[in-house]
C-alpha cells in the first residue's frame, strides 16, 4: 500500500503468519509503524491484534513472515532483545508482581546494581519516584503493588516500560482499567513521548479514544489486514464498519423463530463486587421462550457479572430472579442448574472444562443427577447414550469419547462446554462470549446450534463483544454501561450505531471532546 505521506516507517512487518493449534491467528499481515506517531490498531476480539503485538515484542515467534526495524531485519526476537532494540510493551493483562514493591517492579530484570551485584534500592526508588512524577502520579515507590488500585497499577506498568530507552512503545488496551482523569494523564504522556520521537502502537476497544489520540489506523479482521489509513481520513462509523465487515449477516442466517412466554425475569439485580463502584446497579430485563437476547457492553460494563448472578455464583448479589414465574431462592449454582438455568462461561480453559477428564466425563459433569439410578449409581449405558447423542448432535469431532478433552481443538472443546450445559436440559441458556478464541468455521456451527435451540423453544441470553454476532442472531439486544442498562433494542432497531452509542453512555467525556472531529 502506498502512503501519500512523508512520515517515515520505523518498523515494518511483512506477511506475518501465526498458527496456533486449532486456529490461525494471523494470516499474512503487513503492518507499518510510523516514526513519532500514534499508530492505532483496531479489530474485534480474535482479530489478531494481541498476537501481532506479542510477536513484535518477542514473546511469540511468528510461523512465517519478516519484520524490519528501520532497514535491519529482526530475527529470533526475544523479549530481552526486543527491549535492547527499544521496543517496549504494556500488556492488556497487568503483568506486575503483586508481592513486590513499585520500584522493584519497575526495575525488574534491569535492576540497578552497586558493589558487584547488590541491588541499589536507594537509587532505584529515587528513579522510580522521578518516573512516577513525570506521570503525575504520587505513588510511593516502596508501596507493594498489591496495595495499589488497578488504575495506579496500570501507571506503574507504564512507568516500567518508560524506565528503558524506548523507540517504540506498544500499548495494548492501556485504558481499560483507567478512570477518566487517569486517561487524560495517559494522553498527555503519549503527546510528550511523541514529541520526543517515540513511536506508539496503540490498541483499544474504546473507539472514540482512538480518533482522539491516533495518527494512523490499521484495521485487522479475522487475522487479516483490512486497511491502513491516516486517522484524519476516517470517522467512527468507518472504523466500526471496517472492523465488522459487510458480509456478517450473510454468514449467520437466523431462521424464523416463534417467541413465546417470558421464561426468565430479572428484577433490580444489584451486585457490588470487589471494586469501589457497584458492578451491577439495578438491572431488570426478561427473556422469552425461543428468543435470543443479546447483551452488549464495553469492558467492565457488568455483562459477565449479570450472567454469573443469574447462575447463582455471586452469593452477595441482590435482586429477584423469576424462572417461569417462580421466584428463585438464595444464590446456589446446584439448585439453579436443576431448576433449568445453564451457563457457558467466558473462559473455556479456566471455567468451562476439566482438563484432566475425558470428553464424556466433561459432558455429563453438571447433569450427572439426570443419569443416576437410586441416586448414587452412574449408569454406564445411560451415560454413554447421553454422550453419544450429544457428540453427534453437536458434531463434536473426536475419535473416542474416552479421549482426554485436551486432545480436541478449541472449537470442539467449546462444543463440549455447550453440550454439557444442554445435557442438564435447561430452560434458559446463558452464553458468555460463546465464540471467543475459535475459528470462523466453528463459529458458524455454534451459531447454527444456537439457532436450532431457539427454534426448539429454548430461551438464550448471549453476551458478546462482537457487534456482527448481535446483528446476525439476536431478536433483541440490551446494552449495559457501567452496570446499568443504557439501551434496549428490538429486532429492527439493532444497528451498530445504536449499540455503540448506548454502550458509551457514562463514558461520554472523551467522546464529547473530539465531537467536532469525527465527521
Amino acid at each position, binding site marked *: 500500500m502506498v502512503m501519500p505521506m512523508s512520515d517515515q516507517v520505523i518498523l515494518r512487518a511483512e506477511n506475518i503468519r501465526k498458527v496456533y*493449534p486449532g486456529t490461525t491467528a494471523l494470516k499474512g499481515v503487513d503492518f507499518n509503524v510510523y516514526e513519532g506517531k500514534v499508530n492505532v490498531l483496531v479489530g474485534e476480539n480474535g482479530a489478531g491484534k494481541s498476537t501481532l503485538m506479542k510477536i513484535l515484542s518477542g514473546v511469540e515467534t511468528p510461523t512465517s513472515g519478516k519484520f524490519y526495524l528501520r532497514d535491519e531485519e529482526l530475527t529470533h526476537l526475544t523479549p530481552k532483545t526486543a527491549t535492547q532494540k527499544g521496543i517496549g510493551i504494556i500488556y492488556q493483562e497487568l503483568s506486575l508482581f503483586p508481592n513486590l514493591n513499585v520500584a522493584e517492579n519497575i526495575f525488574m530484570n534491569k535492576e540497578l546494581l552497586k558493589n558487584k551485584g547488590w541491588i541499589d534500592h536507594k537509587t532505584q526508588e529515587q528513579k522510580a519516584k522521578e518516573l512516577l512524577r513525570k506521570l503525575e502520579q504520587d505513588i510511593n515507590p516502596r508501596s507493594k503493588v498489591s496495595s495499589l488500585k488497578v488504575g495506579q497499577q496500570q501507571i506503574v506498568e507504564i512507568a516500567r516500560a518508560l524506565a528503558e530507552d524506548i523507540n517504540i512503545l506498544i500499548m495494548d488496551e492501556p485504558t481499560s482499567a483507567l478512570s477518566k482523569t487517569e486517561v487524560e494523564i495517559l494522553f498527555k504522556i503519549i503527546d510528550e513521548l511523541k514529541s520526543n520521537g517515540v513511536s506508539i502502537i496503540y490498541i483499544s476497544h474504546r473507539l472514540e479514544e482512538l480518533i482522539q489520540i491516533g495518527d494512523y489506523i490499521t484495521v485487522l479482521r479475522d487475522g487479516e489486514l483490512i486497511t491502513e489509513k491516516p486517522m484524519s481520513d476516517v470517522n467512527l462509523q468507518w472504523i466500526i464498519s471496517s472492523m465488522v465487515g459487510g458480509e456478517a449477516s450473510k454468514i449467520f442466517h437466523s431462521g424464523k423463530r416463534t417467541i413465546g412466554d417470558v421464561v426468565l425475569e430479572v428484577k433490580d439485580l444489584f451486585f457490588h463486587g470487589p471494586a469501589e463502584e457497584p458492578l451491577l446497579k439495578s438491572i431488570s430485563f426478561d427473556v422469552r421462550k425461543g428468543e435470543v437476547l443479546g447483551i452488549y457492553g464495553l469492558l467492565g460494563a457488568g455483562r459477565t457479572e449479570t450472567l454469573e448472578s443469574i447462575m447463582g455464583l455471586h452469593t452477595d448479589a441482590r435482586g429477584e430472579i423469576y424462572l417461569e414465574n417462580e421466584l428463585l431462592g438464595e444464590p446456589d449454582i446446584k439448585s439453579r442448574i436443576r431448576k433449568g438455568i445453564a451457563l457457558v462461561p467466558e473462559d473455556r480453559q479456566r471455567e468451562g472444562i476439566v482438563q484432566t477428564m475425558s470428553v464424556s466425563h466433561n459432558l*455429563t459433569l453438571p447433569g450427572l443427577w439426570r443419569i443416576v439410578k437410586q441416586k448414587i449409581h452412574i449408569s454406564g449405558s445411560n451415560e454413554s447414550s447421553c454422550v453419544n447423542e450429544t457428540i453427534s448432535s453437536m458434531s463434536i469431532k473426536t475419535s473416542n469419547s474416552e479421549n482426554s478433552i485436551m486432545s480436541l481443538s478449541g472449537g470442539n472443546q467449546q462444543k463440549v462446554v455447550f453440550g454439557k450445559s444442554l445435557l442438564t436440559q435447561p430452560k434458559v441458556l446463558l452464553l458468555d462470549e460463546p465464540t471467543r478464541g475459535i475459528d470462523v468455521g466453528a463459529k458458524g456451527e455454534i451459531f447454527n446450534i444456537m439457532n436450532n435451540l431457539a427454534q426448539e423453544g429454548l430461551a438464550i441470553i448471549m453476551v458478546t463483544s462482537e457487534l456482527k454476532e448481535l446483528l446476525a442472531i439476536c431478536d433483541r439486544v440490551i446494552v449495559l454501561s457501567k452496570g446499568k442498562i443504557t439501551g434496549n433494542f428490538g429486532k429492527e432497531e439493532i444497528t451498530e450505531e445504536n449499540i455503540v452509542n448506548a454502550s458509551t453512555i457514562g463514558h461520554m467525556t472523551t467522546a464529547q471532546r473530539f465531537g467536532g472531529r469525527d465527521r
Partner: protein
Amino acid sequence: MKNAMKNNDFSIGMILLKMRTIIALILLVIVFTVLLNTTRGINFLHPVNLMTIAKHVAITGIMAIGMTFVILTGGIDLSVGSIVGLCGMIAGGLINEGIVLNMFGGTLYLHVPLIILVCLVLGTAIGGVNGLLITRLNVAPFIGTLGMMYIARGFANIRSGGATFPNLQGKPELGNTGFPILGAGRFLGMPLSVWLMIILMLITIYVAKKTPFGRHIYAIGGNQRAAELSGIQVKKVTTLVYMFSGFTSALVGLIIASQLVAAHPATGESYEMNAIAAAVLGGTSLSGGIGSIGGTIIGAFVIGVLSDGLVMLGVSEFWQNVIKGLVILAAVILDQTQQRINARSSETRDKKQRKMAKST
C-alpha cells in the same frame, strides 16, 4: 485405517508405561524371591511370609485410600499419622482407664465395639475440622493439616503424659474384652486388617468410578472453578473427603493398637509420608484430578514388599530409606514422562484429525 494401526502400535509402549507400578511390583517380588533363596535360603513366597507382608501393606494401604481421595481433590493431608497415634491412645485409655465420672464417683468402662465407634467418630471429626479449615477459612491444605498434625500428636501425648497404655486385653469383669481380635483375628485364614483393606478398596473403587460423588472429587482436582460452575458443591465434597481420610487413619490407629495390644503416643509418626508415597507410586498426581484407588493399593504393595524384602535381606534401615527414596523419585520421573508423551500424542492426533478434516 492405517492411522488406527499406528496408534495401536504406539499404545503398547503406553500400556507398559501405564502398568509400570504393577510391573515394578512383579519385578520386586521376583528379585527378592531369587535373592533370598540363593543368599539365605528363605522362601519369600511362603504363605506365612506373604501374610505378614499383607498385614504391613494393609496399614499403609488403608490410610493411602483416604489420602488418595484427598490428593485427587488437589489437597494433601499431613495429619493422618497423628490421628493414628491419637485414636490408638484414646482406645487404649478407654480400655485401661475408662471414663472417670467425678459426679458419680465411679468409672465407666465401655464395650469394645463402642470404643471402636468412638475412635472412628473422633478420627472422622478431626478430618472434618481439617475440611472446614480448608474450605471455610481458606487455609492451604498443607498448612491446615500440618497444624492438625501437631495438635493431634500433642493430645496423643497429653492423654497419657507420654506413657504407653499396655495390655489392652481388657478385663472380663469390666466387660471390655475382645479388643485384640481386630489385630489378631482371621477370617478364612486372612488377617482381619487385610480384609478391611480389601473391603474398603472395593467400596472406594466403586465410589470413585460409579458415583457422582467420585466424579465430583476428580472434577474438583482437575479444575475447581469449572467444577463449581457445573453445580458441584466443592466445599461439601472437599470436607467429606478429609473426613474420610480421618476415618481411615482412625481405623489404622485401632488396628495397630490392637495388633500390639498396646497404645503408644508416638505410633504413626511419618505414616503420612508412606500414605502419600503409596498414592504417588500408584500414579496419583499431586496436582489433583488424576489417579486411582487400584493404583494406590499397588503402590502400597510396592512399598510393603520393598521394605519387608530389604529387612529380610538384612539391608540396614538407613539404606532402606535411601532405596525407598530412589524408588519414589523414579516413579515420579516416569509419571512426568508419561504425561509428556500423552500431551505429544494427543497433539499429533489432533493435527492428523485436522489434516483429515481439511482433505475431506
